[in-house]
């Protein structure tokens, strides 16, 4: 539920570092809190995001949630297939349900985010 190769935010996004790129999605805990996801809005390729900037919206049957970019970067890819099949956010949050790929302004910034152990502790404290 908390893959070791990812970094996490308090808004329950994850980022996977790959060279100067960061792949972003939402966590297992986030999809569980949302319930059945039925709608996803992602940004256009080419958009530049600041850290914490809203980059899209995810909606379950009952809830609306904004997506926040964990780090700064330019959107070089958005998962268009996922917009057509947003239920994959529930079934495969760390795999098929990646949302955007960013060309990172500063790859080192990823390391300042929570690691798996810290995020696990954060979720456990939040769900108390």
């Amino acid at each position: 539920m908390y893959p070791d190769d990812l970094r996490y935010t308090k808004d329950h996004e994850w980022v996977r570092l790959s060279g100067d790129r960061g792949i972003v999605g939402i966590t297992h805990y986030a999809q569980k809190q949302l319930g059945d996801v039925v709608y996803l809005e992602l940004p256009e390729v080419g958009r530049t995001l600041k850290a914490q900037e809203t980059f899209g919206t995810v909606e379950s049957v009952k809830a609306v949630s904004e997506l926040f970019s964990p780090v700064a970067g330019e959107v070089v890819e958005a998962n268009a297939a996922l917009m057509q099949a947003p239920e994959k956010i529930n079934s495969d949050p760390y795999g098929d349900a990646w949302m955007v790929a960013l060309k990172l302004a500063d790859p080192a910034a990823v390391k300042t985010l929570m690691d798996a152990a810290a995020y696990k502790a954060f979720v456990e404290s939040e769900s108390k």
Partner: protein
Amino acid sequence: MLLKTPLNAAHRESGAKMVPFGGWDMPVEYAGLISEHMAVRTAAGLFDVSHMGEVTVEGPGALAFLQGVTSNDVSKLVDGQAQYSSLPMDNGAPVDDVVVFRRAEGRYLIVVNASNIDKDFEWLSARGPAGCEIADRSEEFALLALQGPRAQEILQGLTALDLAALEYYHFVEGPVGGWPVTISRTGYTGEDGFEIFVPPAHAEALWKRLIDTGRSAGLVPAGLGARDTLRLEARMCLYGNDMDETTTLVEAGLGWIVSVNDAKGDFPGRAILAEQKKAGAPRKLAGFEMIGRGIARHGYAAYLHDDAVGHVTSGSYAPYLQKSIGLCYLPKEEATPGAEFDVDVRGRRVPARVVPTPFYKRAGK
């Protein structure tokens, strides 16, 4: 401090996601909203709706009193029959929407919305009941809703009562699984089904027996999330969302529960409701589906060109229909099927189209 139904422990045991709802700690979903919704459309679902209130009106003056405080014609009821109705105010808007059950001559039970129990009880008490007693009996009943095309066969396995003979909006008292209950062929899902009134002490045992009995037929526990999407597909109004103390019954599309015949006599709002039934109301609660990508939600504004013309009262992704639907108050000339307008989805104007309702109607009904 949230109120708990007698089934609270059972819900937690089965891993339900619990949320506060109208002051109650209620299950919003168990395995998942969409699977629960689909189970009710294709097999059966079991809901805990014990938060609903029950008020009795009893005495020789009960019928006359109820005729003067409700919108529908109570004299049409026979023993063992139920009627969808409301408690209207002078402006033609409801204090609440209710179901009136006639148990015997001079003995009525009214089922009211959870968040309106105190308000309704005070409203009724203040209307000067003569020859009858009004009592809040909400703590004497747990209420289970067994809904779906396989509801009858599942419930029949636990009772000798002939359920096939029980007509829509009728009820019968008798044992189910040995427990003394009242079974009513009513619901809030657009499917066939039953609502079962049971003493709180037996509620958990009955719940578990029903789940065990129905499992092989596809019965699942279903939460308030699926209850809301099911009722919306069937275009059933939710008090506090689709109608309230500012919307008349005719505007809400509930003119059919307003009786203005002579036998019914006078009641609050009769004049304005009679007029609106004849000439139409200036605005109407219209059903719509989204044309553009996006989901309309409660409270979003509706625009015609650049004019704000109304607001969305209920809006959701509809799991069975697999589209985004909603209800919205619109000026009457815009509230006809085919008319298009925009919904402001968090700053973005998304086109929507008025469609005929109900959005979903079960086969054979």
